[in-house]
């Protein structure tokens, strides 16, 4: 791995944080990945099933080249990478300095359970008497105060919830490894000063605090408090605002002068909340509204206590910071609560429902009513609860909830045997992603999910039947009511609580709803060049978008680090792992180490039994036992043992073998063993059964491990060369952005553009809906591209031929005057763009007054449109779009119509604007533009596909007829202009994509490797796509895909040589009959027939080691290094219990 001196800090280890951290780590930067939670994965750790497969595929995010640098197991269970330092339960408390040289202050919350000692035996949990609501199951279940935060995460150390813990010490007694300490003594040393003029309040506070083990003093007035503060140090002051004489605010001001470190919580009556908020600006931490109870006070006090007890703050020097702080959600029980959330047990949020579907959830995946456990037959989803709602100050769309509901409806159908009816109540189904519309259509037409366009107004529980009566008004104005077993609320996003604080601290602007506002045309760059945002922090996104933007953010971060000199190598690359030459020829000497663990039962078979049984095999040099191998002590003992026994292979028999992978890999270099020479087998399932069965079962696993190690191929992984140049096809904004991002890292880029000049669709666009200047962006980008010393622009050129694979492509282009050039490059980025779909409908061509959006845009630009002479304009959305054969949303047309409507209104304020639409895709913060348009009196009329509007040319003007669903009458609009939103079609020639081994999807867009987890990659490594060739997108979204593609390309360009994985396919040429079955079997296109040598070749960087080729080969010529057949057969033998 090539290590560079540059480092980055990624704050937030949700899906976006993980993607960005991996991207940066794969390029060679050191990354510190921080999360406030004690586990990785963010929201995704709670979601088992993701659209569109309705399962999971998160592991596809793991590195594809240099795979052995990272963990190779389910990503939901955990992650490691050589270049990533993961710090959980850690908060960022400060960021200062210049871009390229930032100082980030990290504070780890105190860990009352030592993860180095905890063996995850779980004996503490039944001992704990406290039960609180379990956040992992969205509050649907209860957990103990000492618990596993996520059941499937590893390492699986338990965590103590300090706020809930009563410090009874039962868990300390139960713990066999002394991993738990009680905060008892620390709490006594925590001094709290209570300042209140009312004795009763002071007394009860003191009593509560002392019951919790804190030391509390009291003061009856401001001056008294100040005297006490002078006399002795305090950690926390609880301060009343309204006191006679010196009031709380004044006391606060003076106290802060005396001891600036003092934490202060203000206590206030409801009437003076504003004063309390004001007090927070001059240094108070928080406030409590009187009257409060012990349950609201203690968590706040414990929070301060935890913060002060936190480990010494560490400062990390870093090049740049990525903030992926996640999101919060609207609380549907706040406000008017028309749907009875929190009152009716069967009213859930989407996340809660997701937990209900999960195998690790409260009902183990069975769908039953929470109130009475009866089966669920009818479920309703209500969209836009706390989104698209000005009453809850949420004039935005939360982007993901429509698809989440469709997915949940389809999943729920699979969970219920017999009748099941899913109903989705919506305003607009925002199916704006690439395959979303078809997914919705399948749900509606094939799976029978009911879609009702309405906003239900109330819900009443029926105690007799346990059902929920939901009432709504249908399109015709009639009131409808139906009974449901369960109602799921699609709650909207809210800014993450840290947003405001970080924004103030770093001087970043917030949008009107409190989300951090990125720079114009960027989704990740902020005003501060060293600080980049990603994930739901800047607005809710689905996984695919979060992944794209995380890679884009990584590219922007990487650029900052690179320009500060961070790309220089700090370490010589270690390729494929150094291996003593002789090792492959030495006879195996296996050291078998068995863990005697505190978590297993005492009935386990004696060590001598295993020793005797395993020693029968001459390959086993020694059998030893170590207590609690997963602890730090255990690992040290293991290292000593390896040295002492002079073993050249190591077998570990323990529980949870995943836990060991990382430690064993770290152990490798110290003990001189590479990862392939170390094997861990899980003998835990045998520990719960007694006697001979247990011994036999565990022995089988150990023997199978011995067989594996005996037949291992200890060869170093192959290496391929990388040509350090990129080819970008297409010179629109996406192509130019990708070229710049790669070239800015010092690699040469050939930018091939078929047209006369660069710019693509930006040449005819002027402004965005938000009012940003498109021309200025184009001018700026053109200047940067043309002046860049590493970008070679080939205008009026086209790709005529291409061949090769990741690391070494050769492309032939034909340029001006048929000149032919051969370009050598390591990666290819396809950014061939897209164009407006041609109009065929609505009298286009029959009347000059019917035009497409781009025609209108051009006419507006050159002033050839007489808007003043018009009375009405009709805009028709989804013309030929979102219906077969173009059954996808083009994403930009709704925004374009809104924008053009505003421009026309500027030209003629009297103009009537009618927008005929199916679902208005005003996603994200664009919703505010939609609201503004309605406020400006523009008329929006939804139409159904089977009752499309009719446009007829009449005496120079146009008549548009459409059914108005609320009036339930046909409307006739006399318009002088009809604008057709025809959407986007891609321009990606099939031959071009296939020349690079990429494919097109059903609509002619680039087929990505995986729409969620690898959204800009081709399945064939080294080929990427961005911009409109990938999918319909706005300018900032296209730029994000371009930056993402560039970052994915940089992972490969960043190395002169690529080492592949230890498990990789090979060919025995003497046995190969060239039948080519393996070529078809390979999902990655890593195999090819070399015509010159008449040999089957494998590109080891593209091969992912799945072994499909070895299984189809009729001659045993294809084999998997790291999993040879003889090894597998020996393992099968051992498993059955035959000869080892």
């Amino acid at each position, binding site marked *: 791995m090539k290590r560079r001196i540059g480092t980055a800090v990624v704050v937030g280890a949700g899906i976006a944080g993980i993607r960005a951290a991996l991207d940066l780590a794969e390029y060679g930067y050191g990354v510190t990945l921080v999360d406030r939670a004690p586990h990785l994965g963010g929201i995704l750790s709670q979601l088992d099933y993701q659209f569109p497969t309705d399962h999971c595929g998160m592991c*596809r995010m793991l590195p594809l080249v240099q795979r052995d640098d990272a963990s190779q197991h389910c990503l939901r269970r955990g992650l490691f990478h050589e270049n990533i330092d993961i710090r959980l339960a850690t908060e960022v408390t400060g960021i200062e300095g210049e871009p390229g040289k930032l100082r980030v202050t990290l504070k780890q919350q105190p860990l009352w359970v030592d993860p180095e000692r905890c063996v995850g035996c779980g004996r503490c949990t039944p001992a704990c008497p406290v039960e609180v609501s379990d956040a992992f199951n969205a509050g649907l279940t209860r957990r103990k105060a000492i618990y596993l935060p996520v059941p499937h995460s590893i390492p699986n150390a338990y965590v103590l919830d300090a706020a809930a813990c009563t410090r009874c010490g039962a868990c300390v007694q139960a713990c066999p490894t002394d991993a738990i300490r009680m905060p008892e003594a620390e709490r006594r040393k925590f001094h709290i000063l209570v300042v209140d003029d009312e004795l009763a309040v002071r007394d009860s506070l003191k009593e509560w605090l002392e019951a919790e083990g804190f030391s509390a003093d009291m003061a009856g007035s401001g001056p008294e408090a100040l005297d006490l503060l002078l006399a002795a140090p305090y950690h926390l002051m609880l301060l009343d605002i309204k006191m006679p004489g010196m009031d709380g605010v004044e006391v606060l001001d003076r106290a802060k002068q005396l001891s600036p470190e003092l934490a202060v919580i203000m206590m206030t009556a409801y009437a003076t909340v504003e004063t309390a908020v004001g007090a927070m600006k001059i240094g108070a931490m928080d406030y409590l509204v009187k009257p409060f109870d012990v349950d609201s006070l203690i968590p706040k006090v414990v929070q301060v206590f935890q913060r002060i007890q936190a480990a010494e703050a560490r400062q990390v020097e870093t090049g740049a910071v990525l903030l992926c702080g996640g999101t919060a959600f609207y609380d549907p029980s706040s406000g008017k609560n028309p749907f009875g959330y929190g009152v009716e047990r069967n009213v859930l949020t989407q996340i809660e429902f997701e937990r209900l579907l999960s195998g690790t959830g409260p009902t183990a995946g069975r769908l039953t009513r929470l109130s009475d456990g009866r089966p669920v037959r009818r479920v309703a989803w209500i969209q836009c609860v706390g989104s698209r709602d000005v009453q809850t100050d949420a004039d935005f769309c939360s982007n993901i909830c429509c698809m989440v509901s469709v997915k949940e409806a389809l999943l729920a159908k699979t969970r219920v045997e017999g009748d099941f009816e899913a109903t989705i109540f919506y305003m607009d189904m925002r199916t704006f992603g690439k395959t979303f519309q078809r997914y919705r259509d399948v749900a509606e037409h094939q799976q029978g999910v009911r879609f009702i366009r309405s906003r239900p107004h109330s819900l009443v529980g029926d105690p007799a039947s346990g059902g929920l009566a939901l009432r709504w008004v249908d399109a015709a104005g009639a009131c409808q009511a139906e009974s449901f077993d369960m109602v799921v609320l699609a709650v909207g996003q809210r800014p993450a609580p840290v947003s405001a604080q970080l924004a103030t601290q770093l001087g970043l602007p917030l949008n009107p709803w409190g989300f951090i506002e990125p720079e114009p045309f960027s989704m990740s760059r902020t005003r501060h060049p060293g600080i980049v945002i990603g994930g739901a922090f800047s607005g809710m996104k689905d996984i695919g978008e979060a992944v794209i933007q995380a890679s884009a953010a990584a590219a922007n971060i990487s650029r900052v680090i690179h320009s500060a000199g961070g790309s220089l190598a700090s370490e010589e690359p270690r390729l494929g792992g150094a291996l003593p030459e002789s090792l492959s020829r030495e006879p195996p000497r296996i050291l078998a180490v068995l863990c005697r663990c505190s978590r297993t039962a005492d009935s386990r078979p004696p060590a001598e039994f295993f020793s005797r049984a395993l020693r029968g095999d001459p390959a086993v040099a020694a059998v030893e036992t170590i207590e609690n191998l997963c602890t730090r002590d255990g690992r040290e003992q293991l290292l000593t043992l390896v040295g002492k026994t002079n073993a050249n292979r190591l077998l570990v028999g323990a529980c949870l073998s995943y836990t060991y992978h990382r430690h064993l890999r770290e152990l490798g270099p110290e003990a001189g063993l590479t990862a392939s020479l170390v094997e861990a087998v*899980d003998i835990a399932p045998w520990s719960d059964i007694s006697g001979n069965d247990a011994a036999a079962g565990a022995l089988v696993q150990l023997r199978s491990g011995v067989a594996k190690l005996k037949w291992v191929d200890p060869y170093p992984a192959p290496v391929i060369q990388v040509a350090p140049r990129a080819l970008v096809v297409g010179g629109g904004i996406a192509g130019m952005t990708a070229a710049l991002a790669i070239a800015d890292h010092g690699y040469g880029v050939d930018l091939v553009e078929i047209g006369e000049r660069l710019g693509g669709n930006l040449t005819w666009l002027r402004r965005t809906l938000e009012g940003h200047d498109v021309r200025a962006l184009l001018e700026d980008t053109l200047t940067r591209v043309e002046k860049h010393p590493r970008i070679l622009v080939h205008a009026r050129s086209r790709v005529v031929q291409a061949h090769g694979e990741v690391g070494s492509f050769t492309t032939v282009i034909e340029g001006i005057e048929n000149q032919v050039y051969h370009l050598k490059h390591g990666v290819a980025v396809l950014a061939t763009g897209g164009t407006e779909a041609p109009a065929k409908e609505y009298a286009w061509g029959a009347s000059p007054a019917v035009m497409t959006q781009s025609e209108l845009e051009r006419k507006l630009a050159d002033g050839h449109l007489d808007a003043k002479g018009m009375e009405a304009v009709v805009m028709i959305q989804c013309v030929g779009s979102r219906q077969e054969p173009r059954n996808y949303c083009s994403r930009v047309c709704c925004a374009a119509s809104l924008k053009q409507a505003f421009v026309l209104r500027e030209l003629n304020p009297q103009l009537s604007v009618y927008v005929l639409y199916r679902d208005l895709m005003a996603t994200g913060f664009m919703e505010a533009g939609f609201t503004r348009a309605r406020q400006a009196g523009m008329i929006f009329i939804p139409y159904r596909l089977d009752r499309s509007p009719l446009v007829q040319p009449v005496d120079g003007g146009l008549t548009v007829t459409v059914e108005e669903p609320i009036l339930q009458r046909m409307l006739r609009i006399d318009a002088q202009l009809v604008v057709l939103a025809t959407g986007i079609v891609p321009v990606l020639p099939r031959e071009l994509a296939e020349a690079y081994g990429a494919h097109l999807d059903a609509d002619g867009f680039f087929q990505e490797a995986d729409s969620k987890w690898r959204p800009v990659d081709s399945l064939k490594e080294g080929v990427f796509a961005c911009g409109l060739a990938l999918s319909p997108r706005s300018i900032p979204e296209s730029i994000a895909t371009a930056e993402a593609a560039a970052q994915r390309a940089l992972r490969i360009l960043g190395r002169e040589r690529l080492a592949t994985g230890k498990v990789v396919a090979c060919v025995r040429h003497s046995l190969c009959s060239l039948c080519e079955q393996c070529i078809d079997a390979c999902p990655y296109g890593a195999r090819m027939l070399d015509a010159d040598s008449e040999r089957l070749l494998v590109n080891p960087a593209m091969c992912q080691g*799945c072994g499909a080729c070895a299984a189809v080969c009729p001659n045993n010529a294809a084999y998997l290094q790291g999993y040879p057949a003889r090894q597998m*057969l020996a393992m*099968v033998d051992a*498993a059955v*219990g*035959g000869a080892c």
Partner: protein
Amino acid sequence: MSDFEPTIVAFFCNWCTYTAADLAGTSRLAYPPNIRIVRVMCTGMVDPKYVIKALLDGADGVLVSGCNPGDCHYINGNYKARRRIKLLKEIIEQFGFEPQRLRLTWIGASDGIRFAEIMREMTEQIKRLEPSAARLKMVI
């Protein structure tokens, strides 16, 4: 046959089913000790000869378990396994093994409970058959 304890060789893919097995272990979900796990990277790499070898060695049943459809870490390895197992069921009959001795399942990484259920189910299914006669008949 109540005291018949079958030996079942289980080929589990590294990404999904092996994770589910691990999760079942962490969650302390008991499943029968008859299952002998062989971890493979992907069910698509389970060569028919491994299955036949296991049966000839005397295994009473063989279970192949991978990722859910559409979830394969290697894109389509589980589909390859599905085709192969279907054919294998016919082939093993020629060798004198009942097709019920071979089973393919899909268990996602978070389905620890389903994993334990399927292990119990599979063990019951094999228990209903006679012990495999291969060990007695074959000379290897």
